[in-house]
């Protein structure tokens, strides 16, 4: 009788654990500095059991932090073993290979104690605006140039805050007070999480989390296995070309699906390069498995068991598995391409059920003063999402990233820039039965008539647009230029002279299905709305 009641209680507990993380994440998001973090939720929060296995994670947050944080608690405990931790202690690191792939992301882990024993951990990750080094660009030749790296260390010992660490942060960061505030927010949101967890355990009279952990892991493992089994067993290979920093890069994947689990080997991808677009394996794994899970197990929450069903490996030293001291600041350029690489494998397993390729990596739009007035303006410019098997792709919407854009008015209030236009690009969505999402054209100049620098680190897919599927066409490739005629051809720094403007055209998503089967009425609407030109309607869609 009693154990049956427990099923309901376990259920409730599971929901409550997710809610503890949600609350933790919300607290963090509200206290974060930098519009891009605040608007976008470039952060994550989770509850772990006493072994360092993730029990639950906030739904809020971007996929890049998901799996990385899941692994980072155990990785950090290898440096500071649990036996050494006392109540009040808090660990921190921003090591790209232990945390979330670049030095901007700090991971903070706080143990929760009951009667002097660790019953679990609260962890959170967020993007700190500036941590020294070269700031946001791909210009570094090694990780040593990218900012200060903190190995796993105490952020707090008992009640004593590690002021030395905070002093190093404030001394090295261009925005010292904000950086300090962001790190304290991580600490404080974990404290909130610990209190909620202990309240919850008190309410249910629990002295440990073992029973609920095994309930969560068991149910998730079964559910994941069942969901993954929808994809036929087999070995599926795919490759894709990226622009690279200044020379093309190839990504390769060999996906093995068997018996409710998926193993992906990224070996054979290009070797790491000398500029900061390399990706540590932890971040590659985060995005690769996001792509698989979004398609096959969208309803199963993130935890150790659901993540364990998918393994991502690669031989060391590749762009997808860069090792120290490779530079990794703009690692998302590679990482965020991986979902499309995975979906290309799954398309072979489940033909006709997979969305077309999307614009991919978030175009980070980083402008800074190159004249008398110092400033930095960080925003993102988004392209189109691939068409889906039953609907058009979403226009100018981030995928796979969960990050959105900063409003033009907010960006102009924050920095001396003027957005002269921000509009859909006609014909940029790949033609198909279902059309790819549209890219956009953004034109920006200086408000104070001074020179500006722009980092082109994240402007990907300038050489080739995202692929369509099932007969759908490619989306338009991206294009970036300066009004003085300069074309952006690599991921370096560009100068926008006073009086000139930068013109960004983000890629469109790939189309899905044969364009000539797009219903006339829908195509007519596209024509009326100016999303497809008459010429494209005739040549690509065979419209009469």
């Amino acid at each position, binding site marked *: 009788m009693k154990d049956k009641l427990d099923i309901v209680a376990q*259920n409730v507990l599971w929901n*409550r654990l997710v*809610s503890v993380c949600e609350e933790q994440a919300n607290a963090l998001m*509200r206290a974060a500095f930098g*519009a891009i973090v605040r608007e976008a939720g470039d952060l994550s929060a989770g509850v772990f059991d006493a072994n360092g296995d993730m029990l639950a994670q906030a739904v809020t947050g971007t996929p890049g932090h998901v799996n990385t944080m899941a692994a980072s608690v155990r990785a950090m405990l290898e440096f500071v073993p649990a036996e050494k931790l006392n109540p009040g202690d808090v660990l921190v690191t921003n090591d790209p290979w232990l945390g979330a792939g670049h030095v901007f992301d700090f991971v903070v882990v706080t143990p929760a104690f009951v009667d002097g024993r660790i019953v679990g951990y609260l962890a959170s990750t967020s993007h700190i605006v500036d941590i020294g080094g070269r700031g946001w660009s791909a210009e570094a030749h090694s990780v040593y140039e990218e900012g200060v790296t903190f190995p796993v260390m105490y952020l707090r010992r008992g009640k004593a805050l590690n002021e030395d660490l905070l002093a190093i942060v404030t001394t090295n960061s261009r925005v010292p007070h904000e950086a300090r505030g962001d790190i304290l927010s991580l600490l404080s949101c974990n404290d909130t999480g610990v209190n909620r967890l202990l309240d919850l355990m008190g*309410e249910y009279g629990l002295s440990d989390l073992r029973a609920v952990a095994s309930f969560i892991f068991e149910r998730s493992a079964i559910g994941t296995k069942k969901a993954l089994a929808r994809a036929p067993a087999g070995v599926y290979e795919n490759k894709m070309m990226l622009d690279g920093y200044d020379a093309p890069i190839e990504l390769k994947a060999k996906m093995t699906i068997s018996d409710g689990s998926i193993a992906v080997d990224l070996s054979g991808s290009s070797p790491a390069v000398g500029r900061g677009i390399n990706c540590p394996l932890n971040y590659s794994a985060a995005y690769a498995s996001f792509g698989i899970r979004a398609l096959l197990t969208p309803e199963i929450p993130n935890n150790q068991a659901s993540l364990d069903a998918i393994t991502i490996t690669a031989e060391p030293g590749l762009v997808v598995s860069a090792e120290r001291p490779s530079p990794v600041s703009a690692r998302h350029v590679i990482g965020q391409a991986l979902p499309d690489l995975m979906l290309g494998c799954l398309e072979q397993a489940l033909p006709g059920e997979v969305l077309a390729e999307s614009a991919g990596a978030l175009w980070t739009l980083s402008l800074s003063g190159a004249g008398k007035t110092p400033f930095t303006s960080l925003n993102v410019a988004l392209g189109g999402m691939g068409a889906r098997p039953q609907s058009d792709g979403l226009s100018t919407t981030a995928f796979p990233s969960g990050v959105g854009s900063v409003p033009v*008015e907010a960006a102009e209030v924050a920095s001396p820039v*003027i957005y*002269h236009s*921000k509009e859909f690009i006609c014909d940029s969505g790949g033609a198909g039965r279902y059309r790819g999402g549209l890219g956009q054209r953004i034109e920006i100049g200086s408000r104070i008539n001074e020179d500006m620098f722009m980092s082109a680190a994240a402007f990907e897919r300038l050489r080739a647009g995202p692929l369509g599927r099932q007969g759908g066409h490619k989306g338009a490739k991206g294009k970036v230029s300066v009004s003085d005629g300069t074309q952006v051809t690599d991921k370096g720094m560009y100068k926008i002279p006073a009086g000139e403007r930068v013109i960004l055209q983000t890629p469109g998503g790939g189309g899905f299905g044969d364009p000539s089967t797009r219903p006339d009425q829908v195509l007519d609407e596209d024509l009326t709305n100016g999303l497809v030109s008459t010429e494209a309607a005739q040549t690509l869609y065979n419209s009469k």
Partner: protein
Amino acid sequence: MIKISIDIGGTFTDVVAETETGLSSVKVLTTPVSPDRGALEGVNRLLTQLGKSYADITAVIHGTTLATNALIERRGAKTAFITTAGFRDVLDIRYEKRFEQYDLNIEMPEALVARPLRLGLGERILADGSVLQAPQDAEIDALAARIQSEGVEAVAIGFLHSYRNPSHEDYVADRLHKTLGDTVTICKSSDVACEIREFERFSTVCANAYVRPLMSKYLGALKSELNQLGFDGSFLMMLSGGGLTTLEQAMRYPIRLVESGPAGGVALAAHVAREVGSTRTLSLDIGGTTAKICFISDGNPQTTRRFEVARAWRDVKGSGLPVRVPTVELVEIGAGGGSVAGVDSLGRLKVGPRSAGSDPGPAAYGRGGENATITDAHLTVGNIAAEGFAGGMISLAPDNAPAAITKHVQEPMGIADTATAAAGIIELADETMANAARVHGIELGHDIAAFDLLVSGGGGALHAARIAEKLGIKRIIVPQNAGVGSAVGFLRSPVAFESAISVMALLQGVDAGGLSQRVADQLSDVRAIVEEAVPADRIDTSVKVEMRYQGQGLEIALEHAAENFDMDVAGLEAEFVSKYDALVGFTLDNIPIELVSVSVTARERAVPKSQPFEPETGGGAVVTRQVFDLAAQEQVTYRILKRSSLGHDIFQGPAVVSEDQTTTLVRPGWNVRASDHGHLILDRSEA
């Protein structure tokens, strides 16, 4: 003296009359094509019942979902949107992010204005309010010609940074009006929602323009029909923010009416809270498909200016059209009497958000519904009785309830008996609602255990005690007439109007004198609006100042008296820092504090109290019922009390208090009595 309130919902129109002797009400079917017909039918019937005429009516207070429905069903005016050249796609580009991370099939809502009617105009104001490019008359005139030839009925104007400098919007609106005359509605974003963030502001002005012709026509017709019938009193409209406004203002800003129904419900809760002297109140309204939570402090509901209408994707947050107008801040949870219980793909018990609605409804309704719902669970454990359900309006097939639970929950989950499964469904629903309240309370920085729980709706009083236990709440209030809801709330609402000023400046170095002057100007505007309906000496005013550390998203609102408001920079800073500390746990030195917005509200003071009540005499024989208790794992004997016979005597639980519209569960450890005004008060007995 008769005051009439009219609440037009999607299905029913409620009309309530208040006279010296009390309230009376009728419910009629809504007449969607011309809703004024149903409303007048209701008023006629009430007047006949009361033996009164239209001339006896002193005030009509009206709330309607008409604007909301027009937005959801896309039945608004043919609308054009004039915006800064190069930015016509702001309405489609939205936030550029997916509101559901793992759902690859989400859809965004279609913009209210089709792309061909989104017209760029060469003009530009910069972030500091200075003019980069002035609009040209020839270009405006060309747009006017286009608008005429397209047969456009409404025009929304939204230019970048107009919250800072509205002169271009004003100029273009005036010039268009000269050409187009009064036949085309013109709305300006700086007038409708004077706030930074172009997408939200543009979305709001388009929604306002889109529903304005329809709403003006309807409201004008209703008013003149009432007048022709002899009505000569004041005509007020219920706003989403919980206050009332004049017909003229409602016709100008119909978008402010979208949540008037729910706002009426909250207004009633706020009124009851004032009557029983509850200063910190958590209002929970549990209906058939959802539950709604609102925090009320000192009798004033929490309001927000962030709201969205017409959600396009499974009612998921983020999939609607954002609207920046004052709205009571409701958290909606997909758990109500009709919410369906089942087992998900991970073998977990799940309750809601899917609902069986009222047709076919819960399995026990016997209308062919097979789903196990929360209502079925209540019947199975004995919380409610099959006899006399919903005042006898619905006759139940009670055996269907346990059968559905056995099939959909007990067997798939391997639970030993049906009662435990049913109790588990209720426990999970209670948990979901308690948790939503807990999370929302923390966001607002409230210590939820110090609040009273005020419940309404058909299911509120059934769930209240367990939810209160989960939240550590010690007092529950179950209002009289909990079922009549919004329409009574309209009668209890103050006349009020709020207007925002977007500032976005550092607190240090803000032009304090200039801002104080803007507050004073704004105050005389909102005061004038309220004075149209309320004597000047019965108006309270307040200023809400929203601040944050520069670069952070966490905005904290400070409230002050508005009369003679003097920007005290040092005082505001100290107050902000201490509130931040209380909410976050530390403060940040060296980070400048930013002024985000200032809003000014004028509000009618105090409203008349409802009639004092007298309990019926004679309790009758003691009747009991068996109720299954999850924690005890056994049947517990509950005494059945009739609500109408409850007086000030205190009854110890376990007991159920029954009445026509709802049942109050007084769990073991609680006691119950009636307040001076006839509301039920449940207190946690000291253990």
